[in-house]
């Protein structure tokens, strides 16, 4: 690893170059960590759902606590109508959480620190939520942009603002996760570099910062996954229960 704090985000090919038409879909370190997080999620939840004992063991408890945590989050924010989308939001939360957490292990690659990954997820959510909204309410879904109780004079302005804020949802959703992950990992890398270059004399100060930052970053890793999932629930709530 080089001293450049951004080099940890480099994507490089593992194995041969694979091309489908004009597109390069080679297996990279990003693909490796996507597969690793997928496998760890499936492994943990498969082990956690295998046996059904009245007194759950540790891994079963973990799986069931995550299940109830996500299902409570969905029913709290989007109501009972959001039940069919539980599996998707659960997968989304777990995928982001595991990518973030695997990225906290030294020398690993953080999948969610790439704008393209978070943007694809956010764009999929945005398009999906919009489609659900139009299927449920038809053109009535456009009432989302016309809040009730606004004076007629302000209405054109408010509608424009509402449309802009609606369209910027995928950008804010993706940039929030990507920027948090990138900034955190860059900062940790910078402080880690200070430890080496300051050596035995001055390295203790950045080392203590590094320790504190690791704790903070683990918190951020969980929090950003939670925020990502809960914002998805809120958008879904807008599409399912049109309040305006």
């Amino acid at each position: 690893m080089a001293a450049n704090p951004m080099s940890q985000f480099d994507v490089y090919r593992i194995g041969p170059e694979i091309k489908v038409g004009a597109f390069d879909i080679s297996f990279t370190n990003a693909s490796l960590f996507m597969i690793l997080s997928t496998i760890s999620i499936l492994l943990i939840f498969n082990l956690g759902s295998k046996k059904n004992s009245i007194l759950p063991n540790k891994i079963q408890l973990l799986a069931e606590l995550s299940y109830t945590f996500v299902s409570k989050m969905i029913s709290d924010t989007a109501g009972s109508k959001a039940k069919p989308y539980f599996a998707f939001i659960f997968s989304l939360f777990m995928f982001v959480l595991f990518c973030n957490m695997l990225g906290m292990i030294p020398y690993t690659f953080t999948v969610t620190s790439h704008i393209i990954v978070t943007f694809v997820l956010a764009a999929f959510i945005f398009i999906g939520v919009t489609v659900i909204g139009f299927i449920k309410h038809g053109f009535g879904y456009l009432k989302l942009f016309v809040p009730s109780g606004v004076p007629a004079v302000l209405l054109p302005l408010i509608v424009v603002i509402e449309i802009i804020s609606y369209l910027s949802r995928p950008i804010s959703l993706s940039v929030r996760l990507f920027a948090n992950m990138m900034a955190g990992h860059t900062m940790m890398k910078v402080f880690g570099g200070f430890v080496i270059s300051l050596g035995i004399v001055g390295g203790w100060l950045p080392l203590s910062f590094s320790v504190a930052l690791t704790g903070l970053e683990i918190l951020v890793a969980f929090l950003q996954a939670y925020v990502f999932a809960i914002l998805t629930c809120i958008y879904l709530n807008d599409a399912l229960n049109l309040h305006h």
Partner: protein
Amino acid sequence: MFKKIYFQSIFFSFFFIKEAFAAESGGMPQLNPEFWVSQIFWLILTFGIMYLVLSKLILPKISNNLESRKSQILENIEAAEKQREDSDAKLKEYDEIISQSKLEANSIFNQAREKALKDIGAKREILDKQIDNEIAEAEKEIDALRKNVPDKINKIAIETSSELLQKLIGAEVNNSSISAIVEDLSKRNGDKYYGN
């Protein structure tokens, strides 16, 4: 002094590091579109597989497990409730038996007491009667004795006074005259002596 050197060395080393980083920096790898398609492809692949496996195989199992545990716990709670009711009923029965037997014991005790009291009363009546009889007889005797007392005293008085006179005078005295005097005295003072 050491402290000053320590912090100065940290401060100055920041400059060197910055220069080292500046020399190597090459922008953000995230904005390099070389592997974007690959990332999108692998993201859709892995996420899609994960979503399918989770939604079709794993999540239904977990929800099943949770449901079955919930229902089993409810059943157990119901069974426990039933058993509690049973034990409550049994406790009531037991209490009833105890209170009934207490009542019985009380009535038996009361009966026994009444019987004993009756017996005692009957015996006391008999004894009272006997005692009354005896008292009456004794009173009769006393009365008889009391009636005879003045006569006897008079007799004794007559005899003693006649003997006394004989010894003093040396001559025989007519008993009848003495008895007349004694009779007269006793009639006068009898009330004072006998308290009748």
